[in-house]
């Protein structure tokens, strides 16, 4: 894998509007942005309604993923181009999720919705109707996902990357600053985690920084040992999917997992160690 295998720019996306082998998908938590205007021919996925289990705290299982993609008209042979708001947080989460279920031909649009909008590119309100397919997913690839016990066992042993803002890391906030403060029972971070906010990996327009800048950020500035396995986490797993994308897909680091339970799970667990204060 390298950058050109996983990331495309807006010109590439524009050139592939209407390409029968490419399905453009906008992924957001709140899909009202899609409803107001999206990249022409794009369909939408709702991070919560479509990708999360409606009852348990988990994402939809293999059967549910197959049903979702079949219903939306995505086939196993399609190249899926993902983009979204929030600097591609939820699109990166969906990317990770497509990879978990074994869809190989998946791409992320560099800069996502924001760059598309700031470039004043065309937005459409037409909602395409795609014929249904019979999508077959693979078993979940456990090498990409960390669960809580694995995270606790990784303290002091593996790289733990907390990609939340410094105030969330330190325990001063429990959520990003554009949301009311609520959620986990306790603030702070997992002991031995390094704080590398996801935003350091992105430029102002939402595009990813260059590979050299990213390597310097994680290795030299944050002191991550690339010889060790890595687990990334945030609050609910989408910002850390953005960092997982950087480490695993752009920088081609093996053994990088996303802990999607993240702080809303860890910060509410009874008996686990928590560290307070700013990062080093």
């Amino acid at each position, binding site marked *: 894998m390298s950058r050109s295998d996983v990331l495309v720019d807006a010109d590439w996306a524009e050139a592939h509007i209407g390409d029968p082998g490419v399905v453009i998908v906008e992924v*957001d*938590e*709140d*899909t*009202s*942005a*899609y409803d*107001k205007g999206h990249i022409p021919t794009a369909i939408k996925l709702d*991070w*919560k309604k479509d990708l999360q289990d409606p009852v348990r705290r988990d994402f939809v299982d293999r059967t549910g993923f197959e049903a979702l993609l079949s219903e939306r008209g995505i086939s196993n042979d399609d190249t899926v181009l993902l983009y979204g*708001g*929030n*600097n591609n*947080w*939820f699109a990166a989460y969906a990317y990770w999720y497509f990879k978990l279920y074994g869809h190989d031909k998946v791409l992320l649009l560099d800069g996502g919705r*924001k760059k598309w*909008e*700031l*470039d*004043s590119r065309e937005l459409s309100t037409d909602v395409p109707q795609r014929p249904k397919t019979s999508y077959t997913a693979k078993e979940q690839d456990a090498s990409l996902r960390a669960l809580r016990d694995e995270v606790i066992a990784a303290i002091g042993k593996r790289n733990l990357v907390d990609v939340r*803002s*410094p*105030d969330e890391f330190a325990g*001063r*906030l429990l*959520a*990003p*600053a*554009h*949301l*009311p*403060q*609520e*959620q986990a029972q306790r603030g702070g971070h997992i002991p031995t985690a390094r704080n590398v*906010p996801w*935003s*350091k990996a992105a430029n*102002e*327009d939402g595009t990813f920084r260059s590979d050299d800048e990213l390597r310097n950020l994680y290795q030299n500035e944050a002191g991550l040992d690339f010889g060790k396995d890595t687990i990334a986490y*945030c*609050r*609910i797993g*989408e*910002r850390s999917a953005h960092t997982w994308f950087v480490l695993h897909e752009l920088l081609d680091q093996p053994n990088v997992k996303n802990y999607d339970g993240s702080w*809303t799970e860890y910060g509410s667990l009874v008996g686990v160690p928590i560290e307070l204060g700013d990062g080093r």
Partner: protein
Amino acid sequence: MSADGCGAPAGGVSVSAAAGSQAVVEGRVVHDGAPVARGYARLLGTGDEFVAEVPLGDDGGFRFFAAPGSWTLRVLAPGGLRAERSVEADYGRVTKVDVAI
């Protein structure tokens, strides 16, 4: 926006709510007297450290729930439009920042 969500409200926000115990920074962005409905507001800390970003609402509105302190608000909009303001936030207060770009 769902209560347990993490993303910015894609349709933006309708300003304004009472602060309660939160440190709220909110306002509207206008260009030539009209609301800027397509654009982004970013909240930055010292040294340009990114804190949060929201898309502007239909009324050009934005809102942040910040920690108390001094922040920089930066607005980005199509056509290379941008503006910056210094803001102070404190618990229990709604800091209003209206921006003309």
